[in-house]
């Protein structure tokens, strides 16, 4: 039985007053929903949200919406492909989880169509070729299952003696070093008598899936890599299979599709999959057989020819001819719009939501409303890229280590059960795909149920709910802010920040593009003043997808505090070509930018801070004015203190400016707080905060040569202490007030 729910998403997150917003909604059953625009405050643990009603919109009818997950390529065919001898379908493939269910590599015709064919792996992992022609039907099935991690040439078609045949021939130079191919890889072959395949007009062709009976849908998706799928006018015989396995182009090839790297890029890949037509098809009725890539398979991945020498797809594009398809990929739920709403033209900048209520259910779809023109000298940079990286994470349900990381048994809430049961709403960049490979893409065109004010992570407030504590506190203290988002910063660069003297970060701005990092640096160099009220920020390089900017791309590489590792040779971003990973390994440490950088994480209980000598430095005395000391920050919503969750540290060896002032450091952290893995060359005992002085949070202040300044709290939990711990309030207010004052900072 489907759990009761009412969920939705909007086409955009970052908007301005007067914008039209398209709303997509779904529910467990048909219902009528009321839609209100509200200004968001804090979401309380009990489920109440402190929010201000702005306006109501007409009720909408909500129906259960279908989401088609799984990446694939759809090819619309206008005319029948002429075949003289026999149609053969081929592809190179590396399955990653053969067996358990049928998976389609190449298919023509909807399920139930009069004429259709399928090339794929059956539920035992064996290759099969099925042709259905009216009442006639045949399936040729290979005898041996294919081996995960091994490359094969796969062909299905007509045998020399007539009838259907399927062959999976292992490739001689498979790069088995990464593979699960730890046992013998054998050919797999099967024959059966029956009808021959055709490609009829107005019947779609799919790569890595098959068209479902329902209009526009697809299923039986493939998990693994595919390269150079092709159709031939040829019998499937030794000549064809040997030519494929040897890497030779069949002289009888009709058309093939290029899933690999665009050698003339950037862009290195796109959603259009180009078709290479043979001379026989050029000029026929085939204006184009280009495919449409759906649900974002991982591109720029190692192919059958990869030798393990070059790891940058731009240098050897011919070795990166594959795409990695996953049955749980998702780039867009593609639901029909339920409503289109107009935002009030004079809507002040702020964090809002479209609140959708019906049948005792509620969902809030956040909207980050920018100012049309700067309306304050202070901006809050909402870390929407980081929200996306965590979107619909399943730590408690899927993560073997979630409890160890948290230092406590995870507590699940209704939304966690809903997310666990509705996998069609997609994964986060902290999840792995069903085949164990890391999730590279995350899209906002789906319900993102952990980006809701009342959401609590298994470790407490995280991302938006934590940032709303900051937003609410700023409002309570009369500090007007303009809202900006990562999406805007990536689009506009430092120009976006230029009007603001002071910019405040979110609590966990972990992911940045190169453009974003450049922009913050340029703005600081021009005199900007940054209040970094968080930790583990400016940590990973990521990218926005160029064609689908509602989607981010993360490649974790092989180091850092990581939920998964990239495959060998797959650390360059398909969106930009850049080497991905931690900024500290790319020559731009967070310490250089903010004075602090990732040091440790814990989560069971938060600690407090102890003031240090530099807090009395006359240049920094304004920061702790009114704080009696020697300690502060011993209370808060997040773990009961201001120093907690993830922590950043002052470290001259990693780039903290030598003249930076170390104002305060954490105290009272538990043994569950441990040094970050990227700093541990060897695994030794004694890396907890009880044993290692480098597992800590630091408050650091620094004025840059151009007059710009950075104040860093070194802790995600800081925002949770706002409004709870008077000294944390005082320090935060002191810094923001002084930063807003145009008078030069003493240094």
């Amino acid at each position, binding site marked *: 039985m489907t759990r009761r729910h009412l969920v939705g998403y909007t086409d955009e997150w970052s908007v301005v007053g007067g914008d039209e917003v398209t709303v997509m909604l779904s529910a467990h059953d048909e219902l009528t929903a009321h839609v209100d625009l509200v200004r968001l405050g804090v979401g309380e*643990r*009990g*489920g109440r949200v402190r929010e201000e009603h702005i306006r109501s919109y007409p009720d909408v009818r909500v129906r259960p919406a279908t989401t088609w997950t799984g990446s694939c390529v759809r090819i619309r065919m206008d005319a029948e492909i002429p075949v003289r001898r026999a149609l053969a379908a081929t592809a190179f493939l590396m399955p990653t989880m053969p067996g358990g269910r049928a998976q389609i590599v190449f298919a023509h015709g909807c399920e139930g169509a009069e004429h259709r064919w399928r090339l794929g792996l059956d539920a035992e992992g064996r290759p099969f070729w099925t042709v259905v022609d009216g009442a006639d039907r045949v399936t040729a099935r290979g005898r041996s299952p294919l081996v995960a991690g091994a490359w094969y040439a796969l062909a299905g078609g007509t045998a020399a003696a007539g009838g259907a045949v399927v062959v999976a021939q292992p490739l001689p130079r498979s790069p088995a070093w990464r593979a699960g191919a730890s*046992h*013998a890889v054998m050919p797999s072959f099967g024959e059966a008598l029956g009808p021959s395949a055709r490609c009829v007009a107005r019947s779609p062709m799919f790569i890595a899936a098959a068209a479902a009976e329902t209009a526009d849908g697809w299923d039986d998706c493939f998990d693994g890599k595919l390269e150079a799928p092709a159709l031939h006018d040829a019998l499937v015989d030794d000549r064809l299979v040997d030519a494929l396995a040897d890497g030779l182009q069949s002289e009888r090839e009709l058309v093939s599709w290029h899933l690999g790297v665009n050698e003339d890029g950037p862009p290195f890949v796109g959603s259009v999959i180009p078709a290479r037509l043979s001379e026989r098809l050029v000029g026929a009725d085939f204006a184009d057989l280009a495919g449409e890539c759906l649900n974002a398979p991982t591109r720029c991945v190692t192919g059958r020819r990869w030798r393990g020498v070059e790891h940058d797809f731009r240098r050897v594009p011919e070795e990166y001819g594959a795409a990695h398809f996953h049955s749980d990929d998702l780039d867009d739920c593609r639901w029909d719009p339920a409503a289109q709403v107009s935002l009030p033209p004079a809507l002040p900048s702020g964090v809002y939501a479209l609140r959708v209520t019906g049948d005792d259910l509620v969902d809030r779809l956040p909207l980050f409303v920018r100012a049309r023109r700067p309306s304050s000298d202070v901006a809050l940079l909402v870390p929407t890229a980081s929200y996306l990286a965590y979107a619909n994470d*399943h730590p*408690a*349900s*899927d*993560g*073997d*280590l*979630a*409890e*160890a990381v948290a*230092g*406590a*048994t*995870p*507590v*699940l*809430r209704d939304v966690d*059960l809903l997310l*666990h*049961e*509705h*996998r069609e709403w997609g994964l986060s960049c902290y999840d792995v795909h*069903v085949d164990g490979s890391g999730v590279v893409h995350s899209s906002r065109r789906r319900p993102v149920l952990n980006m809701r004010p009342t959401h609590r992570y298994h470790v407490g407030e995280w991302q938006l709910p934590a940032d709303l504590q900051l937003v609410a506190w700023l409002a309570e203290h009369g500090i007007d802010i303009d809202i900006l988002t990562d999406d805007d910063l990536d689009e506009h660069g430092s120009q976006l920040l230029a009007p603001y003297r002071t910019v405040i970060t979110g609590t966990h701005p972990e992911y940045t593009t190169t453009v974003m990092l450049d922009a913050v640096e340029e703005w600081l160099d021009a005199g900007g003043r940054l209040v970094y009220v968080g930790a583990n920020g400016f940590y990973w390089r990521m990218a926005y997808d160029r064609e689908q900017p509602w989607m981010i791309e993360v490649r974790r590489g092989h180091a850092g505090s990581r939920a998964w590792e990239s495959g060998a040779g797959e650390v360059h971003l398909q969106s930009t070509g850049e080497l991905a990973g931690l900024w500290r390994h790319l020559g731009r440490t967070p310490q250089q930018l903010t004075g602090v950088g990732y040091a440790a994480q814990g989560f*069971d*209980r938060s600690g407090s801070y102890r003031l240090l000598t530099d807090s009395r430095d006359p240049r920094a005395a304004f920061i702790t004015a009114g704080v009696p000391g020697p300690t502060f920050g011993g209370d808060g919503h997040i773990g009961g203190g201001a120093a907690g969750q993830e922590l950043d540290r002052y470290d001259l060896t990693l780039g903290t400016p030598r003249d930076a002032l170390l104002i305060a450091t954490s105290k009272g952290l*538990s*043994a*569950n707080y441990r040094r970050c893995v990227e700093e541990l060359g060897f695994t030794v005992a004694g890396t907890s905060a*009880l044993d290692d002085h480098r597992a800590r949070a630091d408050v650091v202040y620094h004025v840059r040569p151009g007059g710009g300044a950075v104040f860093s709290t070194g802790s995600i939990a800081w925002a949770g202490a706002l409004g709870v711990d008077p000294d944390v309030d005082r320090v935060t207010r002191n810094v923001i007030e002084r930063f807003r004052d145009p008078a030069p900072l003493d240094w």
Partner: protein
Amino acid sequence: MTNDNGSSMPSRRRRDRRDRDVDVLELFLERRRDRLAALVTGPLIEEHRHRPIGDHSPGLAAVLVAMREQPVAGKLALYESVADREWQVIRLAGERATAHDLSGPDHHSSLADALHAVFVQRLVEWGLAGSGR
């Protein structure tokens, strides 16, 4: 176990493809159970009751490390059945889209009690404590 030839050797297919890491894991779990059995005492259980989260004695910390690193399939967890007021001991499915088992009767009105209930239930399931402890 014998095969068709009367031999006690496993079949070739089974011999070739089985992951032998499981053999080592079984040995390891046996050894660890013995080690933990020596640590689990009444005072250790009381220590957890008083302080389910945070720093613990070396003995309790060792027991918690073993509990926390269990694979997610069948692992005990908590479900907040009434927001901020009631917590239920549940068992995780470990399989995507398969509902977690919420059929257990164990509900608690404080999070600390619920955390301790999970701790005790795990000890019982490992044979390291009686169900009455």
